[in-house]
């Protein structure tokens, strides 16, 4: 039995990948690929695309292992983020160029900075708790955006509301969510 936690093990494997330890890469793959494949499958919703994406994801992990900073994010969250962002990049590249002009182009002062990250289990309970305080449709839209990578257009279709209504919903929901998460 190992005396370290699974998270420490994963962080250690990532660090060894940064040092070009190929056996560590294999072990990291064996431990984490099923989870990351779940991410690419759910977002891309196509098995062969997800299989291609998972390969690119692990090549990226090998190439960028040195960018993982232990302590900022849990190691498995970092790996999931690599897989999720890669899948979203694929979706985004496929979408037609949007004519959006309504994104705030200047970012004003962001106010007080968020609290330091807390424990994973606590965060899970907390985000569930805060999502439950939103109207069910809106909570569902936030989940769909995160877990499935749905665009505003897809969300508007799924919830049968106009695009701008969906944008307004989402943005207001995110503000409420933040208030709840930092309360």
């Amino acid at each position, binding site marked *: 039995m190992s005396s370290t936690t699974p998270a420490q093990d994963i962080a250690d494997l990532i660090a060894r990948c940064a040092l070009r330890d190929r056996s560590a890469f294999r072990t990291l793959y064996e431990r984490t690929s099923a989870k990351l494949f779940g991410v690419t499958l759910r977002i891309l919703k196509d098995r062969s695309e997800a299989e291609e994406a998972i390969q690119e994801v692990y090549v990226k992990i090998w190439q960028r292992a040195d960018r993982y900073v232990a302590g900022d994010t849990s190691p498995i969250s970092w790996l999931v983020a690599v897989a999720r962002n890669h899948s979203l990049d694929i*979706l985004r590249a496929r979408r037609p160029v949007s004519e959006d002009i309504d994104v*705030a182009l200047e970012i004003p002062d962001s106010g007080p900075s968020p609290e330091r990250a807390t424990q994973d289990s606590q965060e899970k309970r907390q985000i569930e708790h805060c999502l439950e305080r939103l109207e069910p449709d809106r909570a569902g839209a936030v989940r769909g955006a995160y877990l499935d990578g749905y665009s*505003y257009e897809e969300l508007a279709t799924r919830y049968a509301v106009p695009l701008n209504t969906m944008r307004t919903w989402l943005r207001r929901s995110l503000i409420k969510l933040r208030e709840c998460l930092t309360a």
Partner: protein
Amino acid sequence: MSTSDDIKGGHEDPNALVAEYVLGLLPTHEHERVGRLIENDPALRAERDFWTSRFAALNVEYAETPVPAHLYAAIEARAFGDRIGSKSKVSFWDSLALWRGLAAGALAVAVAAVGFNLVQPRFDADQMAVQLVAALQAQEGSGVEFLAVYDQAQGQVRITSLKGEAIPDRDFELWYINGDQPAVSMGVIPVHQRLEIPLDAATQANIGPGTVLAVTLEQTGGSPTGVAQGPIVAVGSAIPI
């Protein structure tokens, strides 16, 4: 489209904007722009990390799914294969490890191919005709990229350069490779110009999904021996569209 009034519902809140960025809701251009703003601002980076870690609590909902076993060899070849070429420029054309890497590297082209598919006319009337596309991506920082389309009905490969410049006193030469077999030349190809290469029946029979196309830098007129002598500058694998 929209006026600014009906989206006033909070779009000026920078924290919501960062959350939209983390969720991936912003259109490509804005996503990249906001990403750069975040990189350059510690407060926004903290905000990004806040959302990333809070949403990560939902990751338990991603169902673990085993990856097909055969994929790992391709991943390893591609991840580790890159380093072989950079160590030995002279011999890497002959390296077995490189060939393994090529086959795996070819898997990276899907995204480019999907994009290309959108602008390529489809022949619905003849669904049986095989069409393949290969994005030949730059190797070793060559900065040279090509896109090749093979249309079986027309018996030709069309190739066009996407990036890169001609090199004085050198020519680019196109090759196809199947598995462990030796590379076969398809001739010298120009930069900044589309080229149609008619294929004989034997060559047509040899090109299919998974065939690797590679471009090497050769002496003017191409390799005199029929065997590639120069470095690979671009490579990609043919996939059906």
